[in-house]
């Protein structure tokens, strides 16, 4: 290249440098920028079931109730009072003086419209389980509404606080009709009553929120302290860290353990490890449909359980907030208990059990997984120490779920987040009520869970759930592994407290 060519290239680079824009995040701009690796295209809590929208759901919308994480109690949010008329009917009195982001007043018609829309068969709501326990809602007065259930549903308050967000009456009526003739409800612009309102959305890139100046005072969410909250998609974890270090963003999570420790060492970033509602488990092919009948033998399942050092995996790979679990549920969920048969790490006992089962030299099998390969590799290492050779097949989630449903996985190492619902019906009942995810289809367990899921007496629920959990862990249909923990990394200017339900409360964050 000629000298003039190099000069031109140098000039172009200099120009490019000059054009580099300033970072928009941080205390100076009163803008909290948080980032994850997922694209957000739809800003609606019913038509986007990603974790990002669970978080944004609490930013932009309000539910009828609020769950106090410290006490575990339900407090008034859009509802001020609620009362069970019978075990399938609830009367609710609503808060007054609340308005939506578009300026319209909030009232019972909005609650009735929201409920009746989401429970309709053609609503297209993505997580139908969150709402299909309700049958309908009706306005009963100027400030009251009645919700009818399809069947007794003791976890109703948990779902009402975490998954049923109220939209204004007629909100989805303006949805455009797609080429297939169906209404595209996800295309409707977001409107809620929440502490922040969405002001700019670019599908797949960002969602910008601004504090709602008319947000009602005296509510459990408080008043927004930060003017703007921006969400931005950054796929690559290293890029997220680079932007965090240079002030381009203020908050990230899912930071790998080694990177989190290094970030902490820089002294520029606050790093926290907090538990989540996600659990890890290994499900056995107890019916022998996967092409090997080795796991139909309880002694083999026990050998596997004794061979795996779950404490070591949580301590060395997952993070300090992770704990080993012994029951097929999250310890924070109502009805969950660790007072069930437990399988301690004891490789010698594992070898003895293998010999008793007729496999003194171990055996080979395929283990399936889709998330955090290193966790499953640690399991494989532990199994190898007692002579069991596990070959890892690592698949995408949707491919693995197909195989699990077809009963083709001898052991599948999976995870479950319960949609952050703090009730056992969102975890154990999902997996052991006889559906396609149920590895055992144990009639006794199915009956116990059905009783627990439809009884409103908390003491009875706890009792029957304990029996079901004891049978599941005793028979080792599952080997419950551990709770997931997440590393959070955020600006030192930020007052932020991670919560155990994996829903960051950005509306409660503030600058130092």
């Amino acid at each position: 290249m000629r000298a003039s060519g190099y000069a031109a290239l140098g000039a172009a680079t200099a120009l490019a440098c000059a054009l580099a824009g300033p970072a928009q995040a941080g205390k100076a701009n009163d803008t909290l920028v948080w980032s994850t690796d997922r694209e957000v295209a739809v800003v609606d809590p019913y038509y986007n079931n990603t974790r990002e929208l669970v978080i944004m759901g609490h930013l932009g919308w309000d539910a009828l109730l609020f769950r106090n994480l410290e006490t575990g109690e339900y407090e008034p949010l859009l509802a001020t009072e609620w009362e069970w008329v019978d075990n399938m009917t609830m009367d609710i009195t609503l808060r007054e003086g609340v308005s939506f982001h578009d300026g319209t007043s909030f009232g019972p018609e909005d609650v009735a419209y929201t409920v009746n829309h989401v429970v309709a068969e053609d609503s297209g709501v993505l997580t139908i389980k969150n709402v299909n326990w309700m049958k309908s809602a009706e306005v009963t007065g100027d400030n009251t509404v009645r919700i009818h259930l399809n069947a007794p549903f003791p976890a109703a308050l948990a779902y009402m606080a975490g998954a049923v967000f109220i939209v204004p009456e007629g909100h989805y009526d303006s949805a455009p009709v797609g080429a297939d003739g169906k209404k595209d409800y996800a295309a409707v612009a977001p409107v809620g009553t929440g502490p922040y309102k969405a002001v700019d959305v670019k599908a797949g890139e960002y969602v910008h929120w601004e504090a709602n100046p008319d947000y009602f005072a005296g509510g459990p969410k408080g008043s927004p302290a930060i003017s703007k909250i921006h969400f931005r998609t950054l796929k690559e974890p290293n890029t997220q860290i680079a932007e965090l270090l240079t002030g381009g963003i203020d908050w990230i999570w899912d930071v790998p353990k080694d990177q989190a420790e290094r970030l902490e060492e820089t002294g520029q970033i606050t790093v926290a490890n907090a538990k989540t509602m996600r659990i890890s488990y290994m499900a056995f092919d107890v019916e022998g449909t996967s092409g090997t009948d080795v796991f139909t033998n309880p002694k083999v399942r026990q050998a596997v359980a004794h061979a795996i050092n779950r404490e070591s995996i949580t301590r060395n790979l997952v993070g300090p907030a992770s704990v080993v679990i012994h029951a097929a549920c999250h310890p924070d969920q109502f009805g969950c208990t660790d007072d069930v048969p437990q399988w301690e790490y004891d490789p010698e006992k594992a070898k003895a059990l293998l010999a008793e089962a007729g496999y003194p030299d171990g055996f080979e099998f395929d283990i399936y997984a889709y998330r955090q390969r290193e966790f499953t590799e640690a399991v494989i290492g532990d199994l190898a120490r007692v002579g069991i050779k596990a070959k890892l097949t690592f698949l995408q989630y949707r491919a693995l779920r197909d195989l699990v449903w077809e009963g083709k996985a001898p052991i599948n190492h999976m995870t479950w987040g319960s949609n952050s619902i703090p009730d056992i019906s969102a975890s154990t009942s999902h997996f052991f009520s006889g559906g396609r995810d149920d590895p055992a289809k144990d009639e006794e367990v199915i009956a116990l869970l059905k009783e627990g899921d439809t009884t409103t007496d908390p003491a009875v629920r706890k009792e029957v759930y304990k029996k079901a959990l004891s049978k599941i862990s005793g028979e080792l249909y599952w080997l419950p592994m551990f709770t997931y923990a997440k590393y959070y990394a955020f600006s030192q200017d930020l007052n932020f407290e991670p919560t155990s339900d994996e829903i960051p409360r950005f509306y409660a964050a503030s600058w130092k």
Partner: protein
Amino acid sequence: MLAYLLRRLGVAVLVALTVSLITFSMIYLSGDPAVALAGESATEEDIESIRRYYGYDRPILVQYLDWLGRALTGDFGQSHYLKAPVAEVIFERLPTTMLLGACALTFALVLSIPLGVLAAIRPNSLIDRLALTIAVIGQAMPSFWFALTMVLWFGITWRLLPITGSDSWANFVMPSIALGYYVTPAVMRLTRAGMLDVLATDYIRTARAKGLRPHTVLFKHALRNAIIPVVSLAAVQFGFMLGGSIVIETIFAINGLGYLAWESIQRADLPMMQAIVLVLSVFYILLTFLADMLNAWLDPRLRTA
């Protein structure tokens, strides 16, 4: 000539359709799209509801023919994930990827052709060894590592360039170098080899014997012939950059087409994937055609062949 062109066009359309049919089938082979759309904590009920809503409960062939029928009328449908018209999303992202590809290719050509020529003029010299070193490093170094190294130095340590986004020219400097450097070795070695062959031919010796200036011999007679395979390679590499810049687009958070394709596969967004495959197939076909035209212009013998 017209018949030849039409025949080529017909084959190209068939290739594009075959690719789209294979893509459609492979999505089903890699798992249930309804499960992908429903997300990780979806229950059976959720998944069944989504399957019915999006029509995934119909036979695959019916779904494909339905898509094809609409596509032929220019309707690529709605993205199941982004909830926007597929054509709108693609044509919003395509210019970003094309700009990145063009910048990267320009960087690659500006670096590799002069080095290839210099290496051929003075084989086994210091400059030849330098070119070889650059080529070996470029071939061996993973592009993601090179990109992250640049981010570390130019983004974090010296803070000279923005790390993410596509708002200004500055955003394209690091991604273009990272993407272009990967292409550099092949272009450089091909230029060098072509120049060495051409410089050893009789007509170059004759040109020199006629007393033509070295500059004229080198650029007007030698390079023009040596660069013919480079043009074909550059066209193919540009096509690769359009569809294959996923890693670079991910690291620098550039919302381009490659990244969109990868994401659409991950989330089984069938309408989006089908349209991207079709668009990229058409681009490859067009680029190959353009490369042929360019070669014909550079080499008159090809025009009469």
